[in-house]
Every structure is written in structure tokens, then in C-alpha cells.
């Protein structure tokens, strides 16, 4: 057999002295790296993706997954991955795929932004003893509010409030479809969303009936494949999202590989078992802002005017596009930065198209303010939110809330190995293989995800307290409380942020 000239990335190794032959590694590896050789475990290391499932389930710490020390000769220009990809492409003629967000060393603006804090002249607030408001309402806000005094002497508004989505904290879970992730993973998201008073998003793959009890915490998505979309679906959740693009693969559609389309997924999507589920690159009924408006209102008409979100990848012209989306009638604009995750995308697209979320949020917030329509829609920022600090920074840049995907999957065991597109995820997350998905007990992992949301909420409160603010509302678009370090003048200008020291 022809041995690939692309050397394995990782070396799975077992210390045979420590190994007690329990064979758990064989059971646990979704990629079939291990097999039983009669007296010892055999290793096919070329298949290893360093997901670390085997390591965690080895009872005697016998396993080590090493980065293969055999690399091509060090070259600052022709990197290991350039050479390796060419070899793989020479062997297959195919497009290398990847999962998760871009791992390339582009500058990370989050890491060049610092938050303010109170000292002496303005008091900070202790969130442990004083009320601190994280509650967030997403949706159109009226440009003016009329009030009147009722007969009972109480003041009330007479302005009709457009429909709002109530979040107990400025988080939501980013869209991940049944098909790209397992039903159990979706259940984890739904249970945690309900418990935390936030929302999850079905992605484009229909709504499994098991999620119906969580419908008050679900946004349903309509994308180019229109999978699973019927009137019940549109009305099932608190809002409907039209997906135009995804940060990891702006401008291209989705191909859910046939390996991830067993019966249940085929049923939800209404396509034959084992076909690739193809989501066309554009929605062919949307070639313009006017067409988008038509779909937004078709959905509103079908749902008695539920809020509609429009999700786009952040591309160069994002501010003008977002303005068009708001004018087309969207209640929310979901911006997905180029670091955003994916279940499957061509690596070349993921790593070279789009712009970071930090620039995009600043530009969109500016533009909508300049045009006097910032109140017409909420901005949801996503695409590489790694911590509550990122959350605070992006909100200060102008977002109303964030959506998290990768961080949520990490609570389920994900190690960001990036091989989600194979359908073999050993953690039972991005796979439909029943023997793998049963590993993900929704109750157990929902608890962990709830912990994460609570922990980030506490941290956010601490940050707000240090800033002397008692509501997340006061941080929104409050760029005065941010400073840049090591950023050039132009970047600072785009972000609307002063350099540290000013």
C-alpha cells in the first residue's frame, strides 16, 4: 500500500510497562487508532487527531499523545502545514477540510485591548453586596417612548414595544445544527439555555421533537438548504434567524458529509440517508437587500411578527451590509467574525477570508449610530469569544450580546482538535455514530455548561463592579472604558478606542 508522504501530525504512544491491557483506549478512540494485537494494543498513529479522549480514559496514565517530532526542515516561509497540505493535495486532488475556527497567528485584537477600572475619584461597586444587572433585551427598540399618567396615578408607556427576547445575561449559544452536532449535544445546549435564562439556536437542521420542551429558549434558523423549515418550526421558538453566512466560511455554503446523515438526521432534514446535505452558497431567493426584506417579512407574516435575526459573516463591507439588514427590517444582526467555529469548512477559506469580530462590531455600531438606526436592531457578536473578558470588551465596542459555540463545546469535552468534519468525534459531540453520542450524557454535561455561564456571569459582574457600573447596559458601546496597547493609530481609529496612557 502507498504510504502517505504527509507525515502523521501526532504520535499516539502507550507505555507498555504501565499498560494493564484494559482496552479502554480501543473503545474510546472514535478514529480507530487502536486495535487489539493479541497481547498488546496496536497503534495506527496516522489516524490520531489529538482529541485526548484515550488519554482521559486510560486509568494508568500510560498514554501520551505527542506532536510528531519528525517535521519537515524548519522554514520560516514554507511552514510545516504548507508543505503537508501540498502533499495531501497531491495525493488526493481534494480540498483539505477543517473544523473549528481559524488557528492561524493573525493578530488578536482582544489581546490588545484593556478595560478601565475605578480608583479614588469614582467608587467601584462590589457585586457581591450590591445589585448588578446583566439582563439583556434583544430586538428593536422604539426611537421614542410616549408616556401617560393613568387614572390610578401611575405612569405607563403608550408606545407599543416591538417583541423582545429576554436574556438573563448577555449570552446565547451559537447555531449548531442537528447533524453537525449530535442530538445529545443540542440537548446540553437547550437544557443549559433554559436553566440560565438564555437561548440556544437550532442551526440549519430542523428542530428535533426532544427539544420542544425548551422552545422558550430556542431560536430557529432558516438557511439556504431550508432544512426542516415548516410553519410549526418557524413558530416553535422565540425568534427566527436567517443565516446568510458563517464567519468560518463566508460566501460559501455547507456540505454536511453523508457520514453524518443517518436516519434521524435524514428525517429532520427531509433528504435521503447518506447523501451529503448541501446548503447552497447563497439563498437563491436573496440576491439583494430588497430580497432579504422580502424573506424577513415572509417569515414575520408566517409567525405573527416574531423577531427576526440575520446572521452574516464579517466581511470587508460589513458596516454597509449591516445597515442594509437593519433597514430590511431585521430585529437583530448576528455578526460572525472570521475566527468563528464550524463543523466543516475548507481550510483555505477558513483561514483567509473575512475580518475579525472586533473590527466588525466597532464598524457596524458606528455606522448604525451615524445613520440614526442603532436602536432598530440589536447586535450579536460571535466568532472566537474565549472568556468573559472578551465578552466585556466586545460589548464595550458596541455589541448587545455574544454568542458562544466553541466555548460551550469545550465544556462537553471538546479539545478543539478541529476534526469535527469527519463525524468521528470521540467526545460524542460532532458525530452521529450512536456508540459515540451515548457518551455525552445531557444531564451531566448541561451542568458543566451551566457552571460556565454562571462563572462568566460572575466575572462580568466583577468587571462591571470594577468599572463602577451596575448594569451591562452602561458598558454597551462605552468605548471610553477601553484602551488599546500596541495598536497602530488607524486600528485605534477604527475601534474608536484611545491608546493606553491617554
Amino acid at each position, binding site marked *: 500500500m502507498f504510504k502517505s508522504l504527509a507525515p502523521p501530525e501526532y504520535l499516539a504512544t502507550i507505555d507498555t510497562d504501565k499498560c494493564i491491557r484494559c482496552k479502554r483506549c480501543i473503545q474510546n478512540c472514535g478514529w480507530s487508532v487502536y486495535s487489539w494485537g493479541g497481547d498488546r494494543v496496536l497503534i495506527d498513529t496516522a489516524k490520531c487527531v489529538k482529541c485526548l479522549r484515550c488519554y482521559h480514559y486510560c486509568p494508568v496514565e500510560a498514554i501520551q499523545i505527542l506532536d510528531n517530532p519528525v517535521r519537515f526542515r524548519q522554514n520560516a516561509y514554507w511552514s510545516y502545514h504548507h508543505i503537508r497540505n501540498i502533499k*495531501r*493535495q497531491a*495525493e*488526493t*486532488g*481534494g*480540498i*483539505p*477540510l477543517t473544523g473549528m475556527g481559524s488557528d492561524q497567528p493573525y493578530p488578536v485584537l482582544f489581546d490588545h485591548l484593556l478595560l478601565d477600572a475605578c480608583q479614588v475619584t469614582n467608587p467601584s461597586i462590589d457585586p457581591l453586596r450590591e445589585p448588578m444587572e446583566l439582563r439583556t433585551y434583544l430586538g428593536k427598540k422604539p426611537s421614542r417612548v410616549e408616556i401617560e399618567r393613568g387614572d390610578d396615578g401611575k405612569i405607563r408607556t403608550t408606545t407599543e414595544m416591538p417583541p423582545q427576547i429576554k436574556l438573563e445575561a448577555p449570552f446565547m449559544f451559537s447555531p449548531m445544527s442537528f447533524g453537525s452536532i449530535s442530538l445529545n449535544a443540542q440537548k446540553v445546549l437547550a437544557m443549559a439555555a433554559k436553566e440560565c435564562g438564555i437561548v440556544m439556536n437550532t442551526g440549519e437542521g430542523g428542530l428535533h421533537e426532544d427539544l420542544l420542551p425548551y422552545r422558550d429558549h430556542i431560536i430557529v434558523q*432558516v438557511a*439556504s*438548504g*431550508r*432544512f426542516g*423549515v*415548516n*410553519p*410549526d418550526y*418557524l*413558530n416553535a421558538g422565540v425568534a427566527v434567524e436567517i443565516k446568510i453566512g458563517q464567519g468560518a466560511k463566508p460566501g460559501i455554503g455547507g*456540505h454536511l*458529509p*453523508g457520514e453524518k446523515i443517518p436516519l434521524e438526521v*435524514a*428525517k429532520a*432534514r*427531509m*433528504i*435521503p440517508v*447518506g*447523501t*451529503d446535505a*448541501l446548503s*447552497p452558497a447563497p439563498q*437563491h*431567493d436573496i440576491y439583494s437587500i430588497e430580497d432579504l426584506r*422580502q*424573506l424577513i*417579512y*415572509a*417569515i414575520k*407574516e*408566517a*409567525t405573527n411578527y416574531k423577531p427576526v435575526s440575520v446572521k452574516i459573516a464579517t466581511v470587508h463591507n460589513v458596516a454597509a451590509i449591516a445597515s442594509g439588514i437593519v433597514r430590511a427590517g431585521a430585529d437583530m444582526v448576528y455578526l460572525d467574525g472570521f475566527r468563528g467555529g464550524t463543523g466543516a469548512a*475548507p481550510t483555505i477559506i477558513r483561514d483567509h477570508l473575512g475580518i475579525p469580530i472586533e473590527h466588525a462590531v466597532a464598524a457596524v455600531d458606528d455606522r448604525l449610530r451615524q445613520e440614526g438606526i442603532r436602536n432598530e436592531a440589536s447586535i450579536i457578536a460571535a466568532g472566537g469569544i474565549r472568556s468573559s473578558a472578551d465578552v466585556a470588551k466586545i460589548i464595550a465596542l458596541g455589541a448587545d450580546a455574544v454568542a458562544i459555540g466553541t466555548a460551550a463545546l469545550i465544556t462537553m469535552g471538546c479539545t478543539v482538535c478541529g476534526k469535527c*468534519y*469527519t463525524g468521528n468525534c470521540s467526545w460524542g459531540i460532532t458525530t452521529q455514530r450512536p456508540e459515540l453520542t451515548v457518551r455525552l450524557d445531557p444531564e451531566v454535561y448541561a451542568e458543566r455548561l451551566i457552571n460556565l455561564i454562571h462563572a462568566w456571569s460572575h466575572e462580568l459582574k466583577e468587571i462591571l463592579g470594577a468599572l463602577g457600573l451596575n448594569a451591562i447596559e452602561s458598558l454597551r458601546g462605552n468605548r471610553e472604558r477601553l484602551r488599546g496597547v500596541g495598536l497602530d493609530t488607524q486600528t485605534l481609529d477604527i475601534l474608536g478606542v484611545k491608546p493606553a496612557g491617554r
Partner: protein
Amino acid sequence: MYTIDAKGMYYRDLNRLVREAISKGEKDLLLKNVNGQYYIGDGIRAKDVRITIEGVPGNDLAAFMDGPTIIVKGNAQDNIGNTMNSGKIVVEGHAGDVLGYGMRGGKLHILGDVGYRVGIHMKGYRRQVPVIIAGGRAGDFLGEYMAGGVLILLGLDANGKPIAGDYIGTGMHGGVIFIRGDVDVRRCGAEVGVMEPDENDRKLLKTYLEEYCKDFGLNLDEVMAKEFKKLVPVSLRPYGNLYAY
């Protein structure tokens, strides 16, 4: 029959009146003087309801619709039956672009010509089989990305002109297209195989066309007299070899 005069009416008001009438139990509605109002029948869930439209309904007629029958006494515009779930639409004239996008069930019968990108990504699952039949000619990208369902194009008054445009069935990975007359394979997507219908196909065609001919008072034998071609995807995974894993 419950009549609404739509003359000069804003689409939201018209559609609200339609929904209210249906929820009050009206089964037979007549909309007069319709002139481009969008979204008629959008998202309506009701069986045994019949809506007759006089005039030209606007875009997104019957989007997401689930159950009713809509009869259009004239031409119709774009996006009819967008992601429709069940029910029937009969257009006694021509219709525009992007008909039946992502259609999941129900029937769309059009007497005349249809525009570009008709039947994109139609789906089907077991007994839920959406059907689009157009009596005239079609523009480019007929049945693009088709994943299920049945698309029938008759080209009744084609007079030797090509019945369908270019790129028929590009990206097709499910469902079937029947075209009455010859198909130039150069006009088809690479994912499409062209073949002769077999006995079963002909039976199927006959059932579908029987209903269609009845809707428009056409002669079934004449329609069936000409040979059909059957277009199906050559692969369930047209892009299976595109990637290096």
C-alpha cells in the same frame, strides 16, 4: 363564498383579513382586484380551505403554506411556494422566478411558462413528495440542488424552442425531473443522468398529469402522447470526492 376586495389594500391588511376569515371557519375565499400584494397564504395552516385570486398576486405567494388550495386566475410572480409544506397552488397563467424553493410537500401547477431557478433544493421524505408541474418552458437552473420531489416540465407550446434553459439540475442529489420532449445533455449539470422513463415512471407521470390536466381542462392523452425524458442524480454525493480528509 367569502369575498374580499383587495383593491389598493396594503398587503399586511389583506393577509390579516384572510387569516381572520380562515380562523373564523371560512372555507372558500375570493380575493378580488389583487394587484401585487405579497405573502398571500403565507404560513397558513388549514386543510380544506380554498382561496381564489383574481388579479396578479405578488411575491412569496403561499410561502411556508401548510394545507390550503390557492387558485390564481391569471399570472403570478416570483417565489411561489417558498418552503411550502403542503397544499396546492394552481396558476392559470405564467409564473416568475425561484418557484418552490426548498419546497417540502404539496403541489404547484402552472399552466404557462416559469422563470429561472425553479424547484431549487426541493426535498422529499417518504410520503412527503412535493410536485411542481409547468405547462410551458422554464429558464436556467431548473431543479438546482434538488434533493427530492418531482419536477415536470411540459413545454406544451414550445414550438421547437428549447423547453428548459441551461444548467438543468446542477448539484442535484435527489428527486426526479421529467421533461416532455428531448433534453440536450449539454444543458444539464454534470450531476444529472438523462434516461428513458420506465413503466413505473410512466404510471407515476400519468397520475400526476391526470390531476394537472383536470385543473386546466387539458387533454391527458395529448399531453402523454409525446415521449418524456427522466433526469435523476448520478450520485447521492455529487461532491463526495471534492475533499481531502
